[in-house]
């Protein structure tokens, strides 16, 4: 029983990291109706940005809250700049192109980032700076609450609440929702869809930046292909919750994190990647719109 609760804690902590990345997928999908395959590599670049910045400042062996916040800010800024550049250079010229072309471009951008990452950063894994000390914060019976898990939870909850505020309480959030539901009508009402789309990329990518620092803290080994698997899983989480739906992405990510932890704990760790895709296929067969998604009727 204690093991089980411990696994739940780990699963929630993993799930909230997935959620941060899944939110980027789901926001871009909601507004552009495209899968931004490059999102997972934006996340990778965020991790490397934090790594190099920490080495530049010489704070890689200086764990503490300030280091955490500095790295979070650096990673968020780098990721949002990269997201903006990708949107501007690769996706905007294809705004009117068929969906297939946009999808292929997204895969191309993703491969480009991965392999230029291997050229620039080197293919061998690097050790992420020590952001925080991992210690047992408090203990209930045999259940340990570690500082990493708590930090991950707190940071991701803050990020998600900020996103919630941004989308539902501010003017630009309302514009984002308007463009997402109908871009041409929104542009008639004085919203510039291109700017809103660029802004969405900035927000989504900076969430990926937050995720990258948290993952780097928890699993301190980064390499240029690190985004591949976690990106796919975050995407599965977004689809599971209903892609385009912000609350759904969080729900789906928690389910993914918990189920992965349980598979590793009680079944076999080699099958955990296959299991994620198994969930995806089952969901798409029985409920293609996802758990919280709405079915849309195609009008001619």
């Amino acid at each position, binding site marked *: 029983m204690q093991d089980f609760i411990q696994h739940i804690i780990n699963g929630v902590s993993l799930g909230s990291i997935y959620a941060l990345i899944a939110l980027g997928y789901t926001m871009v999908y909601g507004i552009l109706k*495209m*899968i931004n395959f490059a999102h997972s590599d934006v996340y990778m670049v965020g991790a490397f940005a934090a790594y190099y910045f920490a080495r530049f400042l010489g704070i890689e062996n200086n764990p503490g809250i300030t280091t955490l916040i500095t790295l979070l800010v650096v990673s968020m800024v780098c990721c949002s700049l990269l997201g903006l550049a990708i949107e501007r250079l*690769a996706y905007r*010229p*294809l705004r009117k*192109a*068929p*969906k*297939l*072309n946009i*999808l*292929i*471009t997204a*895969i*191309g*951008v*993703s*491969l*480009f980032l*991965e*392999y*230029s990452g*291997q*050229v620039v950063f080197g293919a061998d894994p690097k050790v992420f700076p020590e952001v925080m000390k991992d210690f047992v914060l408090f203990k209930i019976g045999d259940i340990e609450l570690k500082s990493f898990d708590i930090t991950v939870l707190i940071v991701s909850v803050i990020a998600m609440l900020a996103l919630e505020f941004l989308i539902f309480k501010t003017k630009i959030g309302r514009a984002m929702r308007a463009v997402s539901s109908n871009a041409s009508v929104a542009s008639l009402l004085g919203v510039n869809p291109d700017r809103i789309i660029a802004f969405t990329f900035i927000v989504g990518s900076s969430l990926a930046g937050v995720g990258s620092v948290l993952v780097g803290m928890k699993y301190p080994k980064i390499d240029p292909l690190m985004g*591949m698997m976690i990106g*796919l899983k975050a*995407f*599965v989480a977004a*689809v599971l919750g209903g892609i385009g739906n912000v609350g759904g992405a969080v729900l789906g990510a928690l389910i993914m994190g918990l189920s992965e932890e349980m598979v590793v704990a009680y079944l*076999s760790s*080699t*099958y955990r*990647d*296959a299991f*994620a*895709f*198994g969930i*995806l*296929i089952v969901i*798409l*067969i029985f409920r*293609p719109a996802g758990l919280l998604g709405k079915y849309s009727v*195609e009008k*001619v």
Partner: protein
Amino acid sequence: MKFLKAPLLSLIALSALGLIFNFGLNAYFQLILLFAAVNCLMSMSLNLVNGYTGQFSLGHAGFMALGAYFSAYANTHWDLLPESVQAIEYFIYALGGGLLAAFAGLLVGLPSLRLKGDYLAIVTLGFGEIIRVALLNMDFLGGPRGYSGIPGFGSFLFSFIFASVWLVICFFTIWRVMHSTYGRSFLSVREDEIAAEAMGINTTRMKVRAFVLSSFFAGVAGSLFAHFTNFINPSSFTFLQSVNAVIMVVLGGMGSMTGSIVAAIFITALPEALRPLQDLTGVDLRMVIYSLSLILVMILRPQGLFGDLELSDMWRKYVRRSS
């Protein structure tokens, strides 16, 4: 027997070419040629789904893996025919590998082809990964160590003729299908699914048929790959292999058979041609160049290099007119 004329002629032509290559090239170029043949099969078959039917499959390597492992297993464990007619046995196993892949294609395609565009890409991607992970965990197929000691043909000439037989079968099957009523239905699904449905075409069934035929030839390609390399392991069939096939189709032009052949040969030869560059700079720039060219082709020439024209159309359009 008139319908056999063109395939037989091209088979003879390819065999003659193989005879020339047999004496004219060294083993290095011969191996590249054989890989080009495998890639041609991959791109032609993927072209049927991604190009003609307008769906997006990202799991082609998974089907290739099925064919390759089936062939490898069958060739090392079963002995149907005597040694003297070994080639026929290889042919049968390639057929079997193709059928296995086609069956898997049916299983994957039936539920997932009801989905639209992007989702299909993800499901096929997931399926390819599942196959790879499953192969990693199957100990009787070697697991992560791979499967070695697969019998090959021994000589380049026989390998090339064997590959040519399948290339000809693949090319003419897809060509004939695309010029029949089925082909029209595939094209109509690509052009406008709703309109196609209104014209009485069962779009899901058409997509599944295209998908099954495509995965059949991917399985055959895997089987050829297993014979040519004599060693396979799950990491030969990663996501990257699927992306490679997609790049070939996109570069050649979605919906152009000859385009995908040209692109397959080009993509196979390119890394070898870029080897001096790699020696010069000391880093592996091939995939960077690949992916950049993919993005640029999509932005500057979205229909691919050939569009949906064939080489013969290009001949008519540009060469004959000017004379």
